[in-house]
């Protein structure tokens, strides 16, 4: 048994309100943009920006709302890992009912000023709950929220240094794929990210498998049977290109796969 420290990417749901129905709707919309990407991704709830109306919600009411939220998140297919920067009053209750309390990291504690908050809510345009991905913080004062568009590549490229033979399938989950030799007819190479083949690319090639539309395919000799990026596919036979057998780069433009010479 080895206990190791590791960095990993987390998806954080920043709450501004605890309007469960609203959150459910917004989260569902987000998920439906790229359902495969968001399937069962780990998520933590961050209450740093949460504005509570203390006069309306008692602690048990609040707890009920958090429980509904937990259910809603689970229903949508996310995996709830924990909560952080939760209202102080809720901490014990959440802890006792099995919620995982993550380390707090916010500079600003949840505001308890109702009027001011309401004013802010009315005035600001985007008071939506934001999904972001960020590395788990260890006392970092600043948090950056990056809008995720399914671009997350958080692992180094999977490197294959032997030919990919007919009948073999290689899948680089959560990263790019680099093949240092040729891929054979009848093989399949797939990646969540981009695919780089330093040799002839034959067989099938599928990049951006989970919906990453910015994934690209690079090869030294384009002889692939089937080319797919983020679900849009094209047979080489049906492609209008003169780059067969030549170094090529393929990317997605809208719904069309564009095949260009490798610079």
């Amino acid at each position, binding site marked *: 048994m080895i206990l190791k420290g590791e960095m990993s990417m987390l998806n954080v749901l920043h709450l501004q309100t605890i309007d469960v129905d609203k959150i459910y709707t917004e989260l569902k919309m987000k998920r439906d943009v790229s359902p495969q990407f968001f399937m069962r991704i780990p998520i933590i709830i961050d209450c740093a920006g949460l504005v509570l109306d203390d006069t309306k919600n008692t602690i048990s009411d609040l707890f009920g709302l958090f429980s509904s939220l937990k259910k809603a998140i689970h229903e949508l297919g996310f995996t709830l890992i924990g909560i952080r920067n939760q209202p102080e009053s809720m901490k014990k209750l959440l802890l006792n009912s099995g919620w995982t309390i993550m380390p707090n990291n916010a500079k600003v504690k949840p505001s308890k000023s109702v009027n001011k908050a309401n004013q802010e809510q009315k005035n600001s345009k985007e008071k939506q709950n934001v999904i972001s991905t960020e590395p788990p913080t260890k006392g970092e004062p600043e948090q950056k929220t990056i809008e995720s568009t399914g671009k997350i590549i958080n692992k180094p490229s999977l490197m294959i240094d*032997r*030919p*990919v*033979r*007919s*009948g*073999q399938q290689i899948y680089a989950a959560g990263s790019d794929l680099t093949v240092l*030799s*040729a891929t*054979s*007819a*009848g*093989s399949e190479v797939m990646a969540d990210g981009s695919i780089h083949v330093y040799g002839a690319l034959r067989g099938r090639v599928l990049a951006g498998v989970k919906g990453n539309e910015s994934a690209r395919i690079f090869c030294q000799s384009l002889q692939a049977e089937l080319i797919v990026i983020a679900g849009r596919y094209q047979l080489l036979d049906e492609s209008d290109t003169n780059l067969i057998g030549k170094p090529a780069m393929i990317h997605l433009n809208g719904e069309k796969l564009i095949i260009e010479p490798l610079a």
Partner: protein
Amino acid sequence: MSKVIVVTSGKGGVGKTTSSAAFASGLAAKGHKTAVIDFDVGLRNLDLIMGVERRVVYDFVNVINGESTLKQALIKDKRVENLFILPASQTRDKEALTKEGVESVINELKEDGFDFIVCDSPAGIEKGAFMALYFADEAIIVTNPEVSSVRDSDRILGILQSRSKAAKEGRTVKEHLLITRYSPDRVEDGDMLSMDDIVEILSVPLIGVIPESDTVLQASNSGNPVILDNESPAGKAYIDVVGRFLGEDIPLRFTKAEEKKGFFKKLFG
């Protein structure tokens, strides 16, 4: 140190048995104690090609099942010193082969002092072929200069490098490409894949090219491995293959199209 060498191809009818017989005979002729095993249970051919079909008493499956000892089943070749043949069963099928059984036979051969154990694989990628390649240290991939053979060779290469015992233990099986039934004239005419094409597609080092030759059929019919035929170009090419396998640097022969001789040139030389 004993070496287990599998002669495989994926595709059927490309020359695995012919090559196994020739290769094993060549190794033995150079003084190495060699066994050649027929893994094609139910469709055995090695005994025919080696001319020992009337001397088969016990076979590979008998040994695995403990119905005979290895020594009782091994047939000593009458032409080449140091050469022994372990025939397959004709009445049973590939299900009779087990990993443990095959392993124990191979280990016993190693203990008996065999330098080389040549495994003649059946065609396909199912149990028989899998058993033949599972314990291999090196592999000779027999390929015809023809598209389906090349594709099937590629497939068996993938299986070799991912599912063999060596692969499971983190070692690589050393691969050698043997092109058989090569016709340089047809390659020059553009009808046939060239050896460079095949090497480029498969990315495996070439150990030899065996030319298409009528003498191969004659050899099978007479039960004499073609390498023993001094007149045969195919036989000579197999001799080169054995030499290269043992580390000698031998240039390729029989790979260039013959100059088309005009009438007068033929007359006067």
